[in-house]
């Protein structure tokens, strides 16, 4: 392609490509057909693929995932949109007890190639339930795959890779980055479950995903100004983690700081800290530190800047790591 896409438009293009390639791919959710989704990520799909394949559903998340399971059993590859992160919980049972477990339950006989798209995270000044980061719940659930894109190129390719996967994939879209533009390549540069080392560092490595990748890059640039070599890894895949890449950067930089918007307590940072420490105990010069949201319910928009990890808090953690 080579042309610039906003992240949301890149997902739209990726959905389009997947639907063109495979007529079993269908897209379903609340307000996704006529309206094109509240973020317009599915804009125009109903016009081009028809309302048999781009389906406005009743307003029921358990129904969306539950019927998607039935459609998958019939041979379809449903891509479900959950309108906002905070509205996925009514579907939790269908995701955790049915979607995740059906393959193991059936001794591998039944596959459920379903993608659940979730616009995630804060920073858009929204009301309650519209800014949550709930990847840890799904990452803790065996049977699911969980990925998180941070830029248009990944968004375009990862959504297609997720749709091609025969496993269920929870696909996180960083809603406050929907309008960020960048070039999109013709071919994916890596497989779905590989992390990307966006910046090499020898003093410390920041590990981030989704919306916080940009923040981490900014922090690394600021640290560079101060004379420190700070690397950045874009996780991309949350479950499974790309442990080899994490091990590599930990061994190289001896210090790791994980950044995410979810609360730190049992957030993905805890798993990364545990894994990296287990595998690189002697290489580490400091414990893996975590910069996440505070362990509070997502606060009113007015307070979100102070709630979310930002460059200052990342730098604070890098300093703590360097001075440990």
């Amino acid at each position, binding site marked *: 392609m080579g042309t610039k896409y906003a992240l949301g438009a890149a997902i739209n293009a990726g959905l389009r490509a997947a639907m063109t390639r495979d007529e079993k791919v269908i897209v379903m959710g609340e307000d996704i057909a006529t*309206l094109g989704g*509240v973020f317009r990520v599915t804009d125009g799909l109903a016009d081009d693929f028809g309302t048999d394949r781009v389906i406005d559903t009743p307003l029921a998340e358990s129904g969306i995932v539950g019927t998607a399971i039935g459609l998958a059993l019939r041979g379809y590859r449903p891509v479900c949109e959950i309108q906002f992160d905070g509205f996925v919980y009514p579907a939790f049972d269908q995701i955790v007890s049915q979607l995740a477990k059906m393959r193991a339950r059936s001794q591998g006989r039944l596959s459920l190639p379903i993608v659940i798209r979730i616009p995630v995270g804060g920073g858009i000044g929204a009301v309650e339930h519209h800014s949550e980061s709930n990847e840890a719940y799904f990452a803790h659930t065996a049977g699911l795959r969980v990925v998180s894109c941070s830029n248009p190129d990944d968004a375009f390719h990862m959504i297609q890779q997720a749709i091609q996967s025969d496993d269920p994939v929870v696909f996180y879209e960083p809603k406050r980055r929907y309008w960020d533009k960048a070039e999109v390549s013709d071919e994916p540069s890596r497989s779905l479950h590989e992390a990307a080392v966006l910046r090499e560092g020898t003093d410390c490595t920041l590990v981030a995903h989704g919306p916080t990748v940009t923040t981490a890059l900014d922090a690394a640039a600021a640290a560079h100004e101060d004379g420190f070599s700070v690397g950045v890894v874009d996780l991309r895949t949350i479950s499974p983690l790309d442990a080899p890449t994490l091990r590599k950067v930990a061994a190289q930089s001896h210090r790791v700081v994980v950044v995410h918007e979810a609360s730190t*307590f049992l957030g993905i940072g805890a798993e990364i800290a545990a894994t990296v420490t287990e595998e690189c105990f002697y290489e580490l010069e400091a414990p893996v530190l975590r910069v996440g949201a505070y362990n509070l319910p997502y606060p009113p928009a007015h307070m979100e800047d102070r709630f979310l990890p930002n460059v200052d808090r990342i730098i604070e953690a890098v300093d703590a790591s360097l001075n440990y």
Partner: protein
Amino acid sequence: MTVTAEPTTTSTPEGTPSVPVTKSSDILEARQNDPTSTAPFQLVEENGNPTRAGDDLGIDLELAQQLHTDMVLARRLDHEALALQRQGELHLWVMSWGQEAAQVGSIRAFRDTDRVFPSYREHAVAMCRKIAPADILRQWRGAAHSGWDPKESNVHINSLVLGTQTLHATGYAAGVRLEGSDEVVVTYFGDGAASQGDVNEAFNWAAAGSLPIVFFCQNNQWAISTPTTTQMRTPLHVRAAGFGVAGYHVDGNDALAVHAVTQHATARVRSGEGPALIEAETYRLAGHSSSDDPKRYRTDEELSAWQAKDPITRLERLLRNAGVGERHFSDLEGRADTFAAEVREQCKSIHGDDLATVFEHTYAEPHPVMRSESSQYLARHDRTAG
């Protein structure tokens, strides 16, 4: 083809002492689960004339003036709030424009001691319960997740996860019932929310337990861009009757009809006959919220057809026909202007608390993570200012 909607496992005696069987209650009782009805119950036609039922029941002019006043002020809140949103003073606003009759007509039929569980669009309800503009706007300014103290207004805070509040209301009603209190609980929700499992669990739970609760659905024809035809096959009042919840169908743009039906249903519920559902047929004249562009999904014709049914115009016509003098209207305009100024002022006076307060409010009892993160936080930031 018809079904018995009369609950079969619990008897619901007619004419218990607390619901006197009068002419008006006969007319209204006949509207419960009425199979012959295709049109919702009306007292006032669009042109402001009483319907046949309006003539039979008689029009309460004093009530009409009260409801008209409530509606005009509520609409003014909407106008001001949307303007404030456009000026960047609110993050978001969800308009209740066009739904004022459904809201004020219903809430005015309850006692102040009856607990309300709203969804998020019930500003007109909140105003009738004397909740201040600042408290209504607080949430939409991004300053707080809720605006008022339910213990003062007897209105629970808004629920944004659709339908969840119907179960809270059902549980609250179970508590009311355990105590043998004669309070009634009312919960508001939309046509879209009715597709949620929680709402249907609530219908069933309330019916099975014969609880004192009124489910009030504002069927405003749309759930964002999704029409009711996508949500359901039968009207909601029919569905409710299937659960054993007494179902009523009313013109939600006719404030007096809404009031009459709600009053009737509520009396029935209060007397112990189990839950009721009122489906008020209305229309959201504005977008879903200040972020929405309704032109993407609905036609100008549909909009103008509903504009012709505007609940405020209808009551104004009725009042004028009935000879209510200009004084009412001009006084009201003055009051609305004063109110508008108040809304603007109160809006700008809302200053959210600092994040520090959230550490205090998340748990009732001491919590080490709160303690340590809160001190980290305070060390990072000056406690004052947001």
